[in-house]
């Protein structure tokens, strides 16, 4: 490096890897190598190490990152994987409604979600948790059983309450994240930048709905289970040490499709739509049914509504 000493110093404030001088790049590469050695991530590249928060990236940077991710996923799974960055639809804020009088607790939504969103199969990660509740007790989590396993559902004397991310308008998880790795999109969906999350799990402590999941180990996703159509802020494969959560199937709903859980439900328990559209089914439910918000007193203002259809 001695031949560099006479040259003017590189601009130090430059944060994007592309515009740094050769020296800063080499230094960064060195740091990435140290970080890789320290963390046991053999595949940690300089680019990944230096990558900035999603919302700070330029269009070109994002394009490069997506190309890199697609290459990495293809190498890992031996299959073509697309990573899109679909923008939110204008004039749309998504809302969800769930009919407690219809849910039979079959957990088809849980498994449709896992299939669609590329959750780790080992260790098992699920974004939806179905609680079996006592009819006598009503909605009371202290009388909930998430591990019910009878030969047949629904069971006498019980009702079922699926819980997933409530996409709060006032999300405590976003408020507490120390590095802005999670935020609410204009269409109301709270997303996570899996490449920026440091894995401190403060958001998990803050979430009143137990909606966030942590990759405690390296996620394993057999190639035959992989959904190759992915979204950057949605169902692309994750790494160990980061948090993930329900995104209302952002990769589907931004293209006008229903979330996987809505499609999989055999009883029509689940309703989904645009809260800003007065003619939507979700608006009909909210305006005409007996609706309640789970843990309403916490003022998280969920866009996930429970109701009694009958």
């Amino acid at each position, binding site marked *: 490096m001695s031949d560099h000493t006479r040259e003017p110093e590189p601009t130090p404030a430059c944060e994007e890897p592309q515009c740094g001088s050769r020296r800063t790049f080499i230094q960064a590469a060195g740091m990435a190598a140290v*970080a*890789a050695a*320290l*963390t*046991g*991530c053999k595949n*940690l590249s300089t680019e990944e*190490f230096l990558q*900035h*928060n999603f919302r*700070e990236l330029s269009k070109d940077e994002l394009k490069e990152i997506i190309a890199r991710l697609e290459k990495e996923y293809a190498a890992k799974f031996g299959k073509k994987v697309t990573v899109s960055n679909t923008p939110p639809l204008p004039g749309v804020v998504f809302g969800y409604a769930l009919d407690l009088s219809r849910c039979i607790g079959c957990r088809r939504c849980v498994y449709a979600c896992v299939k669609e969103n590329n959750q780790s199969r080992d*260790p098992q990660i699920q974004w939806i*948790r179905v*609680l079996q509740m006592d009819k006598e007790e009503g909605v*009371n*989590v*202290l*009388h*909930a059983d*998430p591990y019910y396993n009878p030969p047949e559902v629904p069971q006498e004397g019980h009702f079922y309450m699926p*819980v997933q991310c409530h996409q709060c308008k006032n999300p*405590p998880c976003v*408020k*507490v*994240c*120390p*590095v*802005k*790795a999670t935020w609410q999109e204009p269409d109301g969906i709270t997303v996570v930048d899996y490449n*920026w*999350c*440091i*894995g*401190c*799990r*403060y958001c*998990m*402590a*803050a*979430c*009143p*709905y*137990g909606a*966030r*999941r*942590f*990759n*405690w*180990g*390296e996620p394993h996703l057999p190639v035959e289970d992989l959904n190759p159509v992915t979204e950057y802020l949605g169902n692309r494969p994750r790494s*160990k*040490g*980061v*948090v993930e959560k329900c995104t209302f199937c952002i990769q589907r709903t931004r293209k006008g499709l229903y979330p996987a859980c809505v499609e999989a439900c055999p009883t029509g328990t689940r309703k989904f739509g645009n809260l800003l559209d007065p003619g939507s089914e979700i608006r009909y439910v909210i305006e005409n049914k007996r609706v309640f918000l789970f843990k309403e007193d*916490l*003022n*998280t203002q969920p866009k996930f509504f429970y109701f009694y259809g009958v």
Partner: protein
Amino acid sequence: MRETLRNFGRFVADSLRLLFMGNRAYYGWVAFLLALIVLGALAYMGQLREGLIHTHMRDQVSWGFYIGNFTFLVGIAAAAIMLVIPAYVYEWEPIKEIAILGELLAISALVMCLGFVLVDIGRPDRFWHITPLVGLLNFPSSLLAWDVIALNSYLLLNYVVVTYLLFCAYTDRHYAKGFVYPLVFLSIPMAVSIHTVTAYLYNGLGARPYWNSAILAPRFLASAFCSGPAILLILLQILRKTTRLEIKDEAIFKIAELMAYTMGFNLFLTAAEAFKEFYTNSQETVFIRYLYFGFRGHYTLVPFAWASIVCGLAAFLLFLVPKTRKNWVTLNIGCVLIYSSVYIEKGMGLIIPGLTPDTLGEVYTYRPSLTEVTVAAGIFALGFLVFTLMLKVGVPMMLGDFTMSKRPGKTLAA
């Protein structure tokens, strides 16, 4: 200026040289700590390779032993002001001579705090994301961002003060009051702030009623001002046995007397919390019930919780009665008791019931894994090592045994 820089160079070189001038007990102790650090590092390597699955934390209880130790140690760091206030605000000479020990303890505790945060995060390679100026801090929204700033500033402040004081001692000069006093006075509100911010970290979460109590921060401070000085009292006795450092009995008894007040206040706050919880008897008391009486057949924390109460009460009585406070045996028993009491209360007794039952009512019984215990032992050993090495350098300089003009074991370099 050049002169000062050159002297500082000598100060650093001589400090390093001092580290290698010790008796067998010293080398044995350092070797023991290094062995623990290596063991901790090996355990941590496994966790790095395969993830936090090596711990027993899971989605239901997503913080555990690491964060519990972190919280406890922030209190130890804050407790340095139990020496600084009598020394500098009240100009009480017997404590003034030893106030620097509190600052050294604060530095060591903060090193351990940062260590516990580092091992707890899932992606340590992304630690730069949370580094001020380099990363992207969610300030002022996230209390964790506040904590990063508060803890690092407090560490820096103590480091500067200690280095300056020792450098002055080394160069046979009296320190400049105009420089030290403002910094020391600043360290008082900062010590309060690090523990307050750490309490707010938990306090502000509506999802966790157990932490959502307005007296959480006052309780943090009260308990910190019991446990931190307890370590110091024992340490002061060791130092005056093993070094020429003169520590007067009255200094120790004065600290013990102050501790009696903070312990009484701490017990009062604990009782206030318990009254509000149990008398209202709302459904949200399930967390404190889990801690003290168990819930749905889960009793893991119950013996620890009561041990903490019993130890705290016993220590309070020992410190309250002048006769037992001024008896070395009962004083030291009291120190161990209060330390244990607060370690349980501010460690696992704070974190685990905050998260159990979880937000959907599930009880997951968390016990730290072997990896967690080993890594924690390594971090504690690192803190003790930092403290030992700082004392090794600091004490001879404070005593005036090792200064620029008086360097044993070596003639002055040209």
